[in-house]
């Protein structure tokens, strides 16, 4: 059986997308950029990325009851070397709490390949877009706040990638 996909996005695909000046999906900006002579460019903080940030969220095995996977990579600007043991803080409006509430926040560390992966409750749309917030704020590198948006509120995973430059 073919599922008929008719939602807000498909309806607006023609006209609305022209009006939408913002970039809706910005999961992997660093990876999509062509390699330049001076190497991999650092990730810029996204607008609104730091909203409802709480300093010092604890490192956890899982935020709340889980069910949704937030993952990504952390690399060094220039040579793109993976950065191990980097603390990434994650928060979102989920089925278990609003963005600003403490139980919606958690942190995880990157593995030896610079990858991180943290299970958290299902993200739901807040302020008009289903999105997540991530922060690198440990000080060794320049602080970066990301705000990736899910392609659909029904998705159960999301990626975000950091390319860090020395502070």
């Amino acid at each position, binding site marked *: 059986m073919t599922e008929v996909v*008719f*939602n*807000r996005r498909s*309806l*607006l695909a023609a006209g*609305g997308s022209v*009006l*939408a*000046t*913002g970039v*809706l999906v910005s999961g992997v900006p660093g990876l999509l950029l062509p390699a330049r002579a001076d190497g991999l460019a650092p990730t810029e903080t*996204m*607008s*609104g*990325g*730091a*909203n*409802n940030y709480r300093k010092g969220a604890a490192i956890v095995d899982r935020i709340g009851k889980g069910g949704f996977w937030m993952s990504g990579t952390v690399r060094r600007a220039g040579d793109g070397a993976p950065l191990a043991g980097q603390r990434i803080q994650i928060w979102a*409006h*989920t*089925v278990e709490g*609003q*963005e*600003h509430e403490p139980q919606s926040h958690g942190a995880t560390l990157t593995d030896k390949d610079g990858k991180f992966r943290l299970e958290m409750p299902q993200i*739901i*749309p*807040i*302020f*008009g*877009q*289903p999105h997540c917030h991530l922060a690198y704020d440990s000080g060794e590198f320049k602080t970066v706040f990301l*705000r990736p948006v899910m392609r659909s*509120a029904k998705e159960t995973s999301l990626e975000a990638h950091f390319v860090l430059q020395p502070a």
Partner: protein
Amino acid sequence: MGWRSPRVILIWIALAVAIGVPIALAATSEQLAWRGPLYILAGFAGIIALGLVLAQPLLIGGYLAPLSAYRGRRAHHWIGGALVLAVAIHVAGLWITSPPDMIDALTYTSPTPFSPFGVTAMWAIFAVGLLASLRRRFELRPRTWRFIHMPLAIVIVVGSVVHCLLIEGTMETISKAALCVLVVAATAKVMIDLQVWRKRRTLRGEGP
């Protein structure tokens, strides 16, 4: 035409359906389960505001028989005031729900593409409300008033419709799109019918 005319009954039913169905469907949204009461109130204030935007051109165009031109214009003024109030509740509720997101929107630095459309429409609504309340004191002539009000009305309609369509929230997609189409169609019709760009034409019921 009186209340008994089938055409009159139909247009009022159509208006009630156009505004009522999107509100009713939004009230069944599963997203409400994960929102606080203030956020829910703010969201519905926004949906109701869009419904009021639909009523405005219909009232001033005299399409809502059996209201007389005079009563239609009076209702247009009152609903304009209600629109200002609904937008104020919408913004205040969202501000309290998530202050940084609202501040980003109001300062045009929000990552969400729909925010600048909504904020621009908000300022246009406040401007029309303020000017309308001062219209007598300034002794604005109908022509001058229309010269000010028409561009702002277009900003309100376009801003509100784009804002609403781009949001992924509690509104159901098709009823939302239908309401937006009706708002644009009603605005276009009244502007064409009243030939608002003509210099000498006066609105129905206006003095010579």
